């Protein structure tokens, strides 16, 4: 790890100002950033901790929308979202281990956009809105590929708004070592149609499986997916599984998610 300064502002405005400094970077729960500092893969000169900013923490449930502050930990989401959006709480409670869940934040996860992370699938399948200090970004416009998002430099995820679906489920098939998603599929059914988002699989990061969405929108049952498959081209191939295996898993897990949601 290289040396760095650390600032702990208590408001978004102060954090934005601090992030204006040269080579400054936001620090959420540090569950991704600190290991990469340790491995000297990143060397910011200033870390701006978001931990003490109360205005970006917490869960509020309002009619058909669950709003989660960008600095809210996975543990809080797991504990507080269950009544309104059980599939989302279920996703959160299966991220990492208690230490990771008590530090890691939804804002950090979405800003990082790891191709194997869980929250990107939830946000995309829910058609969530990512709220920042400057604007609101629709999930469909937010994820731009592995580790890339629409966020500008210094932009802070202050909240995520999830429309509550009629039915939903997330099925994660764990990579045996990291327990991130080798493949994860989030299915969410809304009045105007079904959305299916896939994480862990594509070289372009999280994506929507549109064929499955249209099949499920007319018949929300696992049998609607019979015969649907994806090609292994463009899928991640690594020591834990080939692209073809991941493509196969997507079809299997999507059916399981539909069964779990129905």
């Amino acid at each position: 790890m290289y040396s760095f300064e650390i600032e702990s502002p208590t408001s978004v405005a102060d954090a934005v100002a601090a992030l204006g400094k040269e080579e400054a970077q936001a620090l959420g729960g540090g569950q991704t950033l600190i290991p990469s500092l340790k491995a000297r893969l990143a060397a910011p000169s200033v870390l701006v901790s978001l931990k003490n900013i109360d205005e970006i923490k917490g869960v509020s449930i309002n009619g058909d929308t669950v709003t989660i502050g960008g600095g809210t930990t996975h543990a809080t989401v797991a504990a507080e979202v269950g009544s309104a959006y059980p599939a989302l709480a279920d996703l959160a409670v299966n991220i990492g281990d208690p230490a990771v869940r008590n530090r890691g934040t939804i804002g950090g996860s979405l800003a990082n956009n790891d191709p194997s992370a869980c929250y990107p699938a939830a946000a995309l399948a829910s058609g969530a809105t990512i709220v920042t200090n400057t604007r609101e970004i629709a999930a469909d416009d937010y994820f731009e590929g592995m580790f890339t998002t629409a966020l500008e430099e210094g932009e802070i995820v202050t909240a995520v708004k999830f429309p509550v679906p009629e039915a939903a489920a997330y099925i994660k098939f764990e990579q045996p070592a990291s327990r991130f998603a080798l493949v994860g599929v989030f299915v969410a059914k809304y009045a105007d149609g079904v959305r299916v988002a896939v994480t862990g699989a594509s070289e372009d990061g999280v994506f929507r499986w549109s064929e499955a969405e249209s099949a499920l929108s007319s018949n929300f049952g696992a049998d609607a997916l019979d015969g649907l498959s994806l090609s292994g081209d463009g899928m991640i191939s690594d020591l834990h599984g080939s692209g073809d295996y991941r493509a196969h898993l997507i079809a299997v897990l999507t059916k399981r998610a539909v069964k779990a949601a129905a």
Partner: protein
Amino acid sequence: MGQLGARAGLYDAATVRVNATGSISVMVGAHSHGQGHETAFPQVVAEMLGIDESMIDIVHGDTSKIPFGMGTYGSRSLAVCGSAMVRATEKIINKAKKIAGHLLEASDADIELKDGQFTVAGTDKSVAWGDVTLAAYVPHNYPLEDIEPGLEETAFYDPANFTYPSGAYACELELDPETGRVTIERFAAADDFGNVVNPMIVEGQVHGGLAQGIGQALLESCVYDENGQLLSASYMDYAMPRAEDVPFYQVDHSCATPCTHNPLGVKGCGEAGAIGSPPAVVNAVIDALHSGGYTQVDHIDMPVSPHRVWKAMQG
């Protein structure tokens, strides 16, 4: 081994130093790094002398204090080093009986040692362990013409043969044919380790070995790319077995056929779990595939990852 001058697996050594108070330090050549020598070794000496285990201290790992030994490997610590400790303790008993015979004015051939008391056979004349050890170091009433003061003995034990534990392992697992994921439901391990000194430690050794073997069978792997770069370089990619990957084990040691050639009748137990479990797991995977109709699969490389199982099912 032959070139090192050994018959089988090399010797080991132990020094038993009895202090004036009757407490004992045993300096052993085998190192303990979690196997519990500090617990099992005193049990052996305590039982031979009929004194409390808490009076016995095991010293290991410091080459400035211990006799030259060969160390811990190949499930040998109790069978080889423990046997050296038995031999040294036998020498202690022989000498202590001579001292006791002197104190009791009887022939040492008539002295019996039981429950920490030296008794003249067939009489109620006796002297306690601690009185004999004190006499050894404060020898004002002592056969100084016949034996030296002090009570400390060393033995080197060179085993005539290896020990041959045997066992039978059974693994029951479920295989998800859609994903290739294997889940172990039950695992039974029955071993004949000969005489068992400490059943809890032996069970622990087997449990650890099973976890290691299951890890090897299903999870652990060092993977390099074509340029020689290690890909499984952190626990994000190197899959260690965790509690949820292993079942509650059923272990059994009720069949105990003593080893015929060491004084304790013990056999090695440290490696059994890790040796028996990988073939049991992999054979169970093959059996599951066969009963699921995938009869063309007769071999699958470890670790049996979900991806490998799925690929084997594709033919």
